[in-house]
């Protein structure tokens, strides 16, 4: 045993010496310039964020595309990241590693990361090439979506690098039977205030024992809805300065905490499964954008569910995040990629995707108002697309992953009752400030 120790000490020295001699491990850069290719043939690699459930919908959509363009071989890679920040970094590393990716479907939270790295093609020549198709598309989008895409998701020199796709806003899915049992009316026009929300929750708790809502700290699904309905946000309008500790933001956080304190929301910590509790009648509302519809359908609860706006204190509010498509600079089939994007922009693709279980609000208003989107969905589903009118794009700075962590940690601390709202948000504000380089 003792002998071995001396050996190890010697070995450490020898290894260090060997290390100095060893060379040849260098790392190269990214790929080349790519090429145009043919518009109706070639291999395409399309990367998107999605778990197995969403992948089924995507695969059906791709099959539909291949009916029209049998010579374009579409390889779709779904990456089931828990959040957009992780997704962006995962894709970015793959891309830098020389993997062939032609199109990335990326949501707001990751768009700047991609746009700022200069890895996306300027789409102007392609748009020009099919001006009528693009014009038709823009005309059918919510003006806000067009504006947001230009303001928040342009390339470093203001060029168009993204075509916006579907989006998500935040609303509440109400369990009708719980509300009925408690004798609480469901807001007729879909609008209610924080006070009415709390009053409803108290009555529901008393009459049925069910929780009113979940108490999470997700940036998009918890933090932003409470902030925006009080006129607050995490950052100012051009995302240059954090605004996470304004009086309104503090009030929002304190309100979210009070829901837990009053026993209207389950204590955070661990793994609370909203869907299960909702189905069991132990939870009165589910929070979400379009995606809860899949669970609601699975649970056969479409008819017992109604979608209403997030309760408000100052004004109607919701975050919005939208998917967008682009062509990477090192794509070798840029024309085929553009063909596919044109397909995604088409009304037919939008309708088809909405019916087969897409988890977003279709970008085209004509589709969002059609049976394709509102059919087999809870009453009031159209409120999701209407929320675009008052929604705030979810602030997503270049250091999105770190910012999100800071924001969610602070919110979680407050909601769990582990810190006062004001000092906790003050501290988070400082950290966010240092991230944007103040």
């Amino acid at each position, binding site marked *: 045993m003792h002998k071995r120790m001396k050996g190890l000490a010697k070995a450490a020295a020898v290894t260090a010496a060997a290390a100095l001699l060893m060379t040849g*491990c260098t790392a190269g850069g990214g790929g080349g310039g790519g090429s145009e290719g043919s518009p109706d043939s070639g291999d395409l690699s399309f990367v998107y964020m999605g778990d197995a459930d969403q992948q089924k919908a995507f695969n059906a959509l791709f099959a539909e595309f291949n009916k029209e363009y049998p010579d374009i071989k579409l390889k779709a890679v779904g*990456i089931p990241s828990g959040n957009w920040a992780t997704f962006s970094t995962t894709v970015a590393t793959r891309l830098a590693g020389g993997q062939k990716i032609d199109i990335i479907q990326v949501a707001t939270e990751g768009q700047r990361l991609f746009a700022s790295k200069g890895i996306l093609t300027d789409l102007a020549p392609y748009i020009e090439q099919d001006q009528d198709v693009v014009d038709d598309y823009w005309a059918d989008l919510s003006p806000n979506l067009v504006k947001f895409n230009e303001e928040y998701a342009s390339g470093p020199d203001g060029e168009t690098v993204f075509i916006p796709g579907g989006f998500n806003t935040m609303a509440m899915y109400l369990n009708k039977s719980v509300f009925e049992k408690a004798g609480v009316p469901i807001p007729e026009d879909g609008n209610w205030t924080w006070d009415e929300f709390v009053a409803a929750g108290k009555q529901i708790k008393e009459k049925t024992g069910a929780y009113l809502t979940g108490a999470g700290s997700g940036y998009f699904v918890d933090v932003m809805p409470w902030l925006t309905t009080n006129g607050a946000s995490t950052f100012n309008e051009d995302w240059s300065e954090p605004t996470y500790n304004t009086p309104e933001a503090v009030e929002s956080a304190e309100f979210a905490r009070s829901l837990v304190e009053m026993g209207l929301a389950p204590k955070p910590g661990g793994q609370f*499964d909203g869907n299960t509790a909702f189905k069991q009648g132990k939870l009165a509302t589910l929070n979400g954008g379009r995606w809860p519809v899949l669970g609601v359908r699975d649970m056969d609860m479409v008819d017992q569910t109604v979608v209403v706006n997030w309760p408000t204190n100052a004004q109607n509010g919701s975050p919005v995040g939208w998917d967008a498509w682009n062509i990477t600079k090192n794509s070798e089939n840029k024309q085929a990629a553009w063909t596919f994007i044109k397909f995604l922009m088409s009304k037919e693709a939008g309708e088809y995707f909405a019916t087969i279980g897409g988890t977003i609000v279709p970008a085209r208003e004509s589709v969002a108002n059609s049976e394709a989107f509102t059919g087999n969905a809870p009453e009031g589903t159209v409120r999701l697309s209407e929320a675009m009118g008052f929604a705030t794009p979810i602030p997503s700075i270049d250091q999105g992953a770190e910012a999100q962590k800071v924001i969610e940690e602070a919110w979680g601390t407050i909601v769990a009752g582990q810190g006062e709202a004001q000092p906790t948000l003050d501290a988070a504000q400082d950290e966010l400030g240092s991230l944007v380089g103040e």
Partner: protein
Amino acid sequence: MTTIPLAPPVPGDDVLVALEKAGRRKSRRRTPGGVVVDVVLVVFGILMISPLVWLIVQSLTVPEFAFASPPSWLPIPFTLQNFADVLDYMPFFQQFGNSLLLAAISTAGALLFSILAAYAFARIDFRGSRLLLVIMLSALMVPAQLVIIPIFIMMRQVGLVDTLASLWLPALINVFQIFFLSQYFKTIPRELDEAARIDGAGHLWILFRMLVPLSAPAIAALAILGFEASWNGYFGPLIFLSSPENMTLPLGLVTLQNGFGAAPAVVVFAAITMVVLPLLVVFLAFQRQIVESVASTGLKG
């Protein structure tokens, strides 16, 4: 690679004897103290397995009634639907296959190269062998997380990120195995080699026809633990794999519960049960071998 200090020789067989002999020593009187020990052990054991029982019970319960309060310890009403639903949320069998393939290649490959190297270190006096062994052994102190960053960059350069190869290639070298086996080979008398050589046997014959069969228990122990480590690995897959169809089970399970549209709790539980139950069967069938391999190598897997 696992970082482990070199284990003191632990008599694996003795553990089994100890485990088996419980209950055979009828000579000992049943004292009140002894009964207390029995009761404490039973209570402790029940507490240890209660999360697993709860897991299996919930996974067999109709979703509307699962996670009831007060907790239910029987699956009422009973259903198998949750298990069928797992396949809607994750490519379970594909991931099962990935895990199996990864564990099989890593384990078999590492053992093969370890056996070859261990033979050279134990039986052939070649120049530089001592130095080489010492250098390799010093690498046991290098934490896996240090080398995983460069390996990630390397794999990215050769386009192997998001493939199983990015995981089993680095697993082919296992310094501890080399050391452990060479020590084991040294316990086998060298006269046997000489005798075989006089009969005209070469290195390969001596190694694979003689030393390997004689070292079967040690090799089996390393194989069991190597397989277990690979089968259960999370850090490597988390770094290297991102597509569901390429994931191994541990990563697939965690992914199942993450993100938007996460699977319902009962489905997550069904998936965990689908991982745990086969393991329990394997454990009950091969308890001796598994316990012995842990005891004799001191390896944490």
